[in-house]
């Protein structure tokens, strides 16, 4: 039944851009595209976050990814398709540089979180410091291609193209999450998260799994960064690197629930919907109000619902199910 419901929802999402909504259609599509991109990034973060590898520096991967493809396109005219490959390669390298020593020297828990936080800040500050070719805090606008819509330049005048592209990207992210969930890596990572020494003693290669998972998560985040840069056509160190965006990713995921497949998506959708709602209905009079409510909710959630919204609802359903349908067990 759950599968049928899921397919129905997916069908609705697929036809949504053609539903006549009058003047607000373009806006609705814009919001949903953002939800797809940030959910994808959140899912990528949760790949490592759910195993206790809490990174507060995913902004570093996002920023390096977005800036690499943007700079390659603007300066050398390299297609973002190839630029994305370069971004993934560079970000994977960065992830190895961070994760390998972290794993070798047992930098875990608080220390891992603070080390990654420093990495995120270093990337943000370097982008600002190298303002001659990165544009500094003013950011960088993606150069427009010769025609308004170009597959090579990965820029399209019609938002619906982005909509379907991002939908596919988001589904691909969920698929990767699912694959990891079903793999040996999941058991290994869970064991490592519980007790590294014990995991190593039963023959789990701790460093290989931790670095591998970090690289996977970072590479997907880089893809998300490229996708975001292509859609918005503008990159800025504050929105794509550093502590702000890193925490935002983490909080959306925690809000939704980082231990379940759809948790990051639910959290991201809620936070984006909330801030858009408050922005539209209160306008500029209440600047900061959306984030205030959001921060308050986060504190309350971590105190009362540590498994997140989606995680808690799912747990509630699961607890009820054996009572009504004992035959399935």
């Amino acid at each position, binding site marked *: 039944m759950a599968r049928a419901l899921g397919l129905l929802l997916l069908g609705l999402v697929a036809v949504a851009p053609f539903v006549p909504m009058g003047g607000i259609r373009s806006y609705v599509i814009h919001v949903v595209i953002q939800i797809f991109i940030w959910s994808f990034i959140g899912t990528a973060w949760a790949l490592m976050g759910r195993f206790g590898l*809490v990174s507060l520096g995913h902004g570093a991967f996002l920023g390096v990814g977005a800036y690499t493809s943007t700079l390659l396109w603007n300066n050398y005219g390299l297609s973002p398709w190839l630029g994305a490959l370069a971004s993934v390669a560079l970000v994977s390298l960065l992830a190895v540089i961070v994760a390998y020593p972290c794993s070798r020297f047992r930098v875990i828990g608080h220390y891992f979180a603070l080390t990654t*936080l420093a990495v995120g800040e270093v990337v943000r*500050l370097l982008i600002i410091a190298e303002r001659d070719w990165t544009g500094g805090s003013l950011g960088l606008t993606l150069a427009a291609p010769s025609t308004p819509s170009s597959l090579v330049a990965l820029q399209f005048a019609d938002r619906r193209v982005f909509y379907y592209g991002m939908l596919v990207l988001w589904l691909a992210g969920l698929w990767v999450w699912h694959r990891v969930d079903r793999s040996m890596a999941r058991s290994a990572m869970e064991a490592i998260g519980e007790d590294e020494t014990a995991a190593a003693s039963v023959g789990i290669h701790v460093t290989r799994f931790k670095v591998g998972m970090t690289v996977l998560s970072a590479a997907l985040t880089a893809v998300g960064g490229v996708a975001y840069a292509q859609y918005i056509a503008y990159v800025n160190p504050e929105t794509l690197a550093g502590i*702000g965006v890193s925490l935002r990713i*983490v909080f959306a995921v925690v809000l939704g629930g980082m231990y379940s497949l759809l948790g990051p998506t639910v959290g991201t959708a809620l936070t984006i919907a909330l801030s858009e709602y408050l922005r539209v209905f209160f306008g500029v009079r209440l600047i900061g109000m959306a*984030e205030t409510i959001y921060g*308050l909710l986060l504190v309350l959630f*971590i105190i009362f619902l*540590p498994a997140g919204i989606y995680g808690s609802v799912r747990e509630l359903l699961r607890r009820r199910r054996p009572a009504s349908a004992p035959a399935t067990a």
Partner: protein
Amino acid sequence: MIEPIFLLEAALNGILLGGVLALLALGLNLIFGVLDIVWIAYVDLVMLCMYCVYFLVMVYSWPVWAGGLAGIALGVVLGIGVHMIIITPILNSPPINQLLATGGLLFFLQSFATFLWTTDHRSVRLALPIVEVGGMFFSFARLLSFAIAILAMLALYLFLTRTFIGTAIRAVSQDRGAMALMGADPQRVYVVTSAVGGAMAGLAAALLSIQYSVHPHFGAAFGPITFMICVLGGLGNMVGAFIAAFVMSEIISVGGVLWTTEMGYVIAFGLFIVMMFIRPGGILARRE
């Protein structure tokens, strides 16, 4: 080429900055040592206290010392409040949830401050002189802050070593379980620790508000460097944090003169990352 005198001036200014950073780091480190929780929002509490000082001094024209005392009082209230409302319910949660809960508080404080007071930079304007020593210039506000910060740290040291509750605080930070076994009430120690940590935040706010302007993102500007100092010195290690504060502020100050301010921070954070790998227990920790 930069004149040596500018470098010397930058180095001395770095020491002056280090005093206030050390005060911030000690407050945070005290709480960490006792509760084993990193208050990510610590510097945002400082930001609130700075607004308090600003409004009392500039709008209600209180004398600066009275504004500073009010800032400290607010710090104490905030410290106890954060502990009772946010930390107490999640004292036994996984550490990462505790980190994220105070992170949520960070978002809340930052955006609520934006909502109430907009993103304008506000500064406490005092007619304090600039001191000239051998061709180098130092602001009197910085010298004063440095002196007060050093005195406050000395007072903290005496409090921790010479009073009964101070000894209890040190005992808890050494072994949390044993303290409860001895029949002492850890909650009382936690509250006192949070209050002292909050008072340090309030005092730091008073000292920072005469040097820097306050804005809602003040915590984002000074927060990361404060955590880095705590970790670099060894979380919970007071002497380590004190030394680390001066190392970091020297790098930022001298690096800022040699290259750009951002590069100074990049080098400081880069050093932090490397130090995490080679000395994860902090600069003063003995290698296992």
